[in-house]
């Protein structure tokens, strides 16, 4: 068994999941592949199993946060040292996993590495729609301001964590639209994160978890969560149980 785990949250991705798993097994063979089927109504779980992944089947749709956290709990209980989150729809190229792992290994003080679409302004690739980029830029501003370090792609779900990140996220992970909040959660627990430039592809199939009508709710919810998070106490050091106010509802 590997010491590294690729967590692939997927919801109704039967058409793309097989290719995603195959590509992970090809380009990141030192990672075990765990597909978290978030209550799909199609054959996502079967396709993932056929492609050679381990599969967690949630009994109903929890949303991306609950699904990803389930993967982190698995990683924590099976003593994985490194976990990387990869979307099931083919947006995240597994060939980048090596650069993420390299950066995480090179700097032992680093706990999380996020693949950013915007770090390298010259690079091509998929960068979301214009409207969403405005939102992403706003979040990037706010998160950079709070954490005191430059964050360019706070909504990227392509990220790799070490053991302390796994333990933190297994215990506490935001429920919906978790990516932005998770950065602040790391910051609050005094874990260090950095970005690395990646190129993303437009999704092959399925549809985004966030429809355009939900975008406004997304913005308001995440901004509220960020604001509230600033008033939570920061634990002095990792490994101590979080205070009561730390629980995510």
């Amino acid at each position, binding site marked *: 068994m590997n010491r590294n785990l690729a967590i692939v949250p997927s919801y109704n991705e039967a058409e793309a999941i097989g290719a995603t798993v195959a590509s992970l097994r090809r380009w990141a063979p030192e990672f075990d592949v765990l597909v*978290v089927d978030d209550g799909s109504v199609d054959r996502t779980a079967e396709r993932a199993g056929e492609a050679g992944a*381990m*599969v*967690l*089947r*949630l*009994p*109903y749709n*929890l949303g991306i946060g*609950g699904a990803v*956290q*389930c993967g982190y*709990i*698995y990683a924590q*209980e099976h003593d994985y040292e490194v976990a990387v989150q990869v979307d099931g729809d083919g947006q995240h190229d597994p060939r980048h996993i090596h650069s993420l792992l390299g950066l995480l290994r090179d700097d032992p003080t680093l706990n999380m590495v996020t693949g950013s679409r915007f770090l390298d302004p010259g690079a091509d690739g998929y960068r979301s729609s214009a409207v969403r980029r405005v939102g992403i830029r706003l979040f990037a501003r706010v998160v950079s301001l709070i954490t005191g370090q430059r964050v360019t792609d706070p909504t990227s779900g392509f990220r790799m964590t070490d053991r302390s990140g796994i333990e933190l996220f297994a215990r506490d992970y935001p*429920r919906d639209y978790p990516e932005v909040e998770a950065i602040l959660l790391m910051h609050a627990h005094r874990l260090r994160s950095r970005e690395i430039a990646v190129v993303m592809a437009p999704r092959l199939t399925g549809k985004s978890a966030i429809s355009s009508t939900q975008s406004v709710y997304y913005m308001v919810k995440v901004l509220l969560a960020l604001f509230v998070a600033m008033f939570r106490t920061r634990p002095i050091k990792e490994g101590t149980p979080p205070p009561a106010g730390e*629980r*995510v*509802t």
Partner: protein
Amino acid sequence: MNVAVTQLSAALGQRVEVVALAAAICVLIFELVRRKHLMEKYAILWLVAGVTVLVLALWKGLLTTLSHAAGIYYPPAALFAVAFLFVLVMLVHFSVAVSRLSDQNKILAQRLALLQQRLEQQSDDVPPQADRASEPQDERSRTS
């Protein structure tokens, strides 16, 4: 004198209706608890509300005295304010309860998925007899 009599009977008539309403609330809540459709924990607040209405209806002048003491000179306004506050507190209380339930629900769903995966893996690659010996110790180390 005739006017006074009509006023009195009108007031009495209204009071009878209010008393009936308060009694109906109390009976409804009691019945829901008896049939175990409502937990005592949540019933208490509603019973308090019902009894409050009952007391205010029976004890003539209490509402007027209380609202005047609070500086409100139109007693129904005081009643509305208290009722509104009560409903507000109840709704916040329920939002908290729903959030907690949803959180517990999420944890259950995750545990179920993890257990199911472990079971399927065991039946796939390990003969059940060989695995049984190691399992209890495994379980203890994980829950600790």
